[in-house]
């Protein structure tokens, strides 16, 4: 039995494990991947100040730090069930049972599938799959690819592939359906892209993003968007082309695309095939929160956070006794925010476990730190993230008022 089990060896889980172990708790971290680091592993991009964010290196550093702080890290182990009995958690994995007093869920996020005709052909993968294949595993996902979906994540990853010498033939929007307005409407997509302008050396994007603040200008810039697409980095991005279908006999051979109007509707007679041996689909990210549901934790549906999120306070406590959350399970944000949230969760757990006054102060300071980091984050997945966080805090306060249970951290 350990004091604390952490599910997820991503930035949030690892950071929390280090702080808790250094302050005397026995900590076990479980992750089903064979390498520690979570989705941090594949991240590689240049920040505003020109510094490189090398996720592989950051992951290794965190992993070493955790080991040397005495954290037990079990990799290649999937958590499949969780039970809460009086004063202990029982965590069922595919190989063994683990028990602890405290539980921290830091399971991160997953990519939402974006079905499109032909998407089950071998050679079609999520952008995240191609990111890991290229940057972590160092094998080319293919020789020439098309990226379907133009998003912050898709663009950051396209740049990573390009950097590794993989030929990206083009980035196009997905065909519009009833459900994907957000990803298929050129105006929406343009707005979300303006948040990564600093990552794009392309003069067009850099130059246009301040203008995008005005709706009228945004309309104008999309309407006059070059039909040929424009080049960010080394590949053409087409806000006026959509993928209708991925084609191929028993594997990817190409993508059928068509020109679209300003509302995202295909224009008849403009269909063409772009040949490719792999296709990446860039959908959105959503919090991976199934394990929290097993504990009976209530959820809040908040689009700004990426979907269903376990109810939690800014101190990362949940309504369930001895259950804490941190990282992207609480909402989709960048790795630096996840790290900072891991710190908050650690101090909250320490305060609860030891009742020491000085951890109270650390909790408060680390909560402030999260907001500072959020405000400076190089990648913002949702422009309305602060509203999402506010909604969550309001729901938490409502929950507290309804339940006589006094917050264990108040």
């Amino acid at each position, binding site marked *: 039995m350990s004091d604390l089990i952490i599910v997820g060896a991503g930035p949030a889980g690892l950071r929390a494990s280090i702080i808790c172990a250094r302050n005397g708790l026995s900590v076990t971290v479980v992750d*089903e*991947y*064979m390498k520690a680091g979570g*989705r941090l592993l594949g991240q*590689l991009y240049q920040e505003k100040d020109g510094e*490189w964010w*090398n996720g*592989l290196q950051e992951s290794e550093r965190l992993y070493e730090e955790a080991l040397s702080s005495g954290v037990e890290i079990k990799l*290649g182990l*999937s958590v499949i069930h969780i039970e809460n009995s009086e004063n202990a958690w029982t965590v069922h994995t595919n190989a063994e049972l683990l028990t602890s007093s405290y539980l921290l869920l830091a399971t991160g996020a*997953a*990519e939402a*599938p974006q079905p499109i005709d032909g998407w*089950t*052909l*071998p*050679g*079609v*993968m*999520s952008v*995240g*799959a*191609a990111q*890991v*294949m*290229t*940057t972590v*595993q*160092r*094998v*080319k*996902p*293919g*020789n020439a690819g098309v990226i379907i979906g133009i998003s912050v994540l898709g663009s950051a990853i396209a740049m990573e592939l390009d*950097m*590794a*010498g993989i030929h990206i033939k083009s980035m196009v929007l997905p065909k519009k359906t009833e459900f994907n307005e957000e990803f298929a409407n050129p105006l929406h997509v343009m707005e979300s892209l303006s948040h990564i302008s600093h990552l794009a050396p392309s003069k067009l994007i850099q130059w246009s993003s301040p203008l995008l603040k005005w709706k009228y200008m945004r309309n104008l810039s999309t309407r006059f968007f070059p039909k040929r697409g424009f080049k960010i980095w080394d590949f053409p991005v087409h806000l006026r082309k959509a993928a209708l279908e991925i084609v191929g006999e*028993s*594997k990817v051979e190409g993508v059928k695309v068509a020109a679209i109007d300003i509302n995202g509707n295909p224009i008849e007679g403009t269909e063409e095939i772009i040949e490719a041996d792999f296709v990446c689909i860039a959908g959105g990210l959503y919090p*991976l929160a199934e394990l929290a549901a097993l504990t009976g934790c209530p959820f809040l549906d908040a689009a700004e956070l990426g979907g269903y999120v376990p109810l939690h306070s800014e101190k990362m406590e949940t309504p369930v006794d001895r259950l804490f959350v941190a990282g992207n399970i609480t909402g989709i944000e960048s790795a630096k925010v996840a790290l900072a949230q891991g710190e908050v969760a650690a101090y909250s757990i320490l305060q609860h476990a030891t009742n020491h006054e000085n951890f109270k102060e650390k909790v408060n300071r680390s909560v402030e730190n999260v907001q500072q980091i959020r405000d400076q984050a190089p990648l913002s997945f949702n422009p309305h993230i602060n509203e999402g966080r506010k909604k969550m805090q309001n729901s938490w306060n409502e929950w507290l008022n309804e339940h006589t249970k006094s917050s264990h951290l108040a």
Partner: protein
Amino acid sequence: MDRINHHPILGERPKKEAVTFTFDNTTYVGEEGDTVAVALLSNDIRTLRHHEESGSARGIYCNIGHCFECRVTVNDIEGCRACLTVIEDNMKVESGKRLPNPLKQGGSFDE
């Protein structure tokens, strides 16, 4: 697919030991630390299974254990995710197969 030996930011790819394994009774060579999915892709193999019902070919989708599209049989254990399983010498990997379906005869059908 080729391995990415030179990278402008990450530098040279570290040298790794060769690991020999079989996939559907054919012998392949991968590298230490490769997952089954990576080792097979580096041997230009993308198809990891055929859909249990329709028989259509499937490969990896998420590459991080979330989608279960990459299920293969490893040393006689069914349903292993090729993207999470690290290869070992003499490992026996078999592709997931279409199941015989006595009720729906002939031809292909939609999933």
